[in-house]
């Protein structure tokens, strides 16, 4: 093993790695107690020589950097103005090149199939007429938008940006898809900021690993946005944010800055004769492309929620007239509905004529009476999720829930079965994190959200993505709103 400690320094007498407990789960770093996987050997050696003081020192540097930069997110339901640091664990999660190559193929296939599905349901609806999937599945979906059926989106792209959540099942050791996010997936800014901070805190370590870079993401995204606007790439592109009270505001601002485009709020825009303008100090200026981080519901009070103050009256009119592409397209929620998710393998076969490279998690649709019966009988073993939510809100994790919670879910499922799906509990893989309380390395469950960009021909994925980690011992919920943190994710050459 290659040692990265300065020469002359003795190895720690009782290395942190020696006491690390794999806990019966697939571990991302170790194949057996004390035996690192091949692509993690250098990192394991580094940790074996590291002391708690050293790691705590680095942790402080990193946290200070995040605090000073104001890299925070807002937490809802805790009173106005609560900003929090997104907890960050120092120890990177490493993916080997060969595994990443396979993930890339699988993600590309999935994103293209999801885009085909959206082209179809908002166009000819061939898949429905041929009865490959039930009509009711689409038309009962809360995020299906009749208002945009027949709208021709530029270059046929509905899914410009996708965040596909993957988890590694400890049983098989394989990655499976947990959910698709093709509305306004967030988190990519943490991928970029985590990397910057890591390079500062551990300059030698990253270099010695030949980590594939991620910082081309904003450039790739900008290219896609420009490509939609005509004007020979001189289109006026803006990022539309709900404002500073949104949990992902930092990211909106970050991406606008990295792309060098204007960050606007709804009140900065006006629509006149189906053309969108922004209010500048020298009058109105035309807007050609909008990367919107405002949900469909709030985009246009004339068409969707009338009480929305975040949106722009008339925006959907301008969109339908073809005067302003919205990224992602309106109505994408029908493709990442958790009941529709169960059919994505069908989409891949139907639209692409291929077998899915990445598998789904087994999913029970509560709408189906047979499946519902099974779900209700096994609530204490299953994970139940509402189909249209994101961010880990409104979930039931059966094995760790009390009787009252389970009873409540039994009622809500029966009251509105279309709104719920259930999945077996996946034993998510774990990876070592440093726990300052016990001054030990502890295994914590992780997922992986790669960010995929689609320009109508090619899918570009920044190597790695966001590794979210459930920092509470034993927890399987990685969402930042539910006590999750993140790690830098390295794809090595």
């Amino acid at each position, binding site marked *: 093993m290659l040692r990265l400690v300065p020469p002359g320094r003795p190895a720690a007498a009782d290395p942190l790695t020696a006491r690390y407990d794999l806990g019966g789960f697939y571990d991302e770093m170790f194949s057996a107690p004390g035996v690192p996987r091949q692509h993690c050997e250098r990192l394991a050696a580094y940790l074996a020589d590291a002391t708690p003081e050293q790691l705590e020192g680095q942790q402080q540097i990193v946290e200070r950097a995040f605090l*000073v930069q*104001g890299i925070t997110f807002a937490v809802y339901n805790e009173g106005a103005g609560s900003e929090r640091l997104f907890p960050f664990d120092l120890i990177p999660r490493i993916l080997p090149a060969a595994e990443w190559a396979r993930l890339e193929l699988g993600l590309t296939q999935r994103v293209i199939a999801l885009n085909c599905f959206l082209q179809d349901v908002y166009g000819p609806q061939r898949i429905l007429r041929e009865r490959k999937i039930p009509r009711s599945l689409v038309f009962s979906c809360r995020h299906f938008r009749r208002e945009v059926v027949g709208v021709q989106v530029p270059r046929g792209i509905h899914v410009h940006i996708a965040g596909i959540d993957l988890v590694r099942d400890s049983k098989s050791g394989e990655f499976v898809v947990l959910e698709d996010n093709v509305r306004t997936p967030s988190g990519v800014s943490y991928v970029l900021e985590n990397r910057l901070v890591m390079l500062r805190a551990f300059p030698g370590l990253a270099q010695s690993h030949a980590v594939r870079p991620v910082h081309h993401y904003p450039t790739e995204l900008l290219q896609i946005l420009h490509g939609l606007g005509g004007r020979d790439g001189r289109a006026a592109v803006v990022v539309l944010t709900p404002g*500073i009270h949104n949990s992902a505001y930092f990211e909106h601002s970050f991406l606008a800055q990295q792309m060098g485009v204007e960050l*606007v709020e709804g009140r*900065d825009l006006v629509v006149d004769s189906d053309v969108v303008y922004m209010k*500048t*100090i020298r009058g*109105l200026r035309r807007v050609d492309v909008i990367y919107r981080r405002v949900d469909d519901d709030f985009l246009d009070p004339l068409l969707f929620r009338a009480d929305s103050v975040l949106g722009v009256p008339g925006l959907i009119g301008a969109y339908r007239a073809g005067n302003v592409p919205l990224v992602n397209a309106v109505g994408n929620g029908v493709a990442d509905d958790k009941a529709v998710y169960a059919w994505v393998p069908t989409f891949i076969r139907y639209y692409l004529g291929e077998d899915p490279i990445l598998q789904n998690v087994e999913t029970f649709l509560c709408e189906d009476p047979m499946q519902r019966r099974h779900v209700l009988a096994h609530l204490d073993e299953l994970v139940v999720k509402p189909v249209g939510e994101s961010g880990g809100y409104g979930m039931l994790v059966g094995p760790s829930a009390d009787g009252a919670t389970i009873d409540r879910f039994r009622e809500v499922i029966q009251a509105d079965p279309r709104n719920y799906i259930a999945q077996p509990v996946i034993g998510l893989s774990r990876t070592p994190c440093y726990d300052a309380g016990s001054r030990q390395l502890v295994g914590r469950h992780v997922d992986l959200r790669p960010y995929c960009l689609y320009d109508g021909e090619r899918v570009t994925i920044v190597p790695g993505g966001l590794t979210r980690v459930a920092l509470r011992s034993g927890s399987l919920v990685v969402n930042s709103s539910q006590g999750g943190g993140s790690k830098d994710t390295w794809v090595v050459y």
Partner: protein
Amino acid sequence: MLSRIAEALFWMGRYMERAEDTARILDVSYHVLLEGGREAGRLRWEPLIVITGERDRFFALHEDATPAAVFDFLAFRPDNPSSIAECVARARENARTIRDRLSRELWEDVNGLYLAVSRFPREEPLTAGPHRFCDLVKFGSHRFQGVASATLPRDDGWFFLKAGRVLERIEMTARIVDVQYHMLLEGQGEPDPHQWMAVLRSVAAYEFYRRRYHSRIEPECVAELLLLDAHHPRAIRFNVAALQRALSALSGTGPDTYANEAERLTGRLNDRLKYDRIGDIFARGLHPFLEEVQTACRSIGAEITRSYFHYAMGQ
């Protein structure tokens, strides 16, 4: 530039300046208090609240203007929108809404000051004196200006930031002089030179005064310096000229002309400060003159808003 961004820069400049000016006043007053007697002390603390324009709010909360109450009110109270902590928080909130338009350095600087102020031990100024807190804010504001100057391009945004800062400074200086002069008239006949020295110190002009006038502290000379001096960066005339330059850079008009009401009012005020003599001003009354300056500031602020931030649609 988006109107909303211009407005945020303008207010960021204003709030940061207000925080600094309040810190200056508090710091200096405290040191005067150390020198003076108990009775004198009470007289000196009440005007501080008047200067910030929050007299009613203060006396709704407190019966008596004790040093501790005044200090806490002006430095920390979240229910006082002019308290230093609130001004810094609002400057930072404005910066946060436009952080993509600021240099990374400037954002981190504002955010750092906000963190330092919001975590400052509230009881320390009362036990160990307010100097460390006031210095934190004063030098925080100076560093903010330095970082802005060293990292921001000289585009429209720069001029809005600058316009906000100098407009606030003009108004604060006018209030400081107005309130002190008023106290003097109400006073027991004998003008207190310490009070005027404190005024000079609060705007960093004491040394400059000594060099310039070679005399004891005369109210008329102090007023002349603070109102009409063309060279001192906290004098009203200096800042009105700076405001005029910023506004004409924004509209692109040449000298001796104007493109909007804000510029016309600023130009008119500038002319008065240029050609009036301090004797004339005293003859007509200092207080009415300072009232006029403050009214002009409010009108100029409203006109900047109307021309650039919230104009009527359909243009």
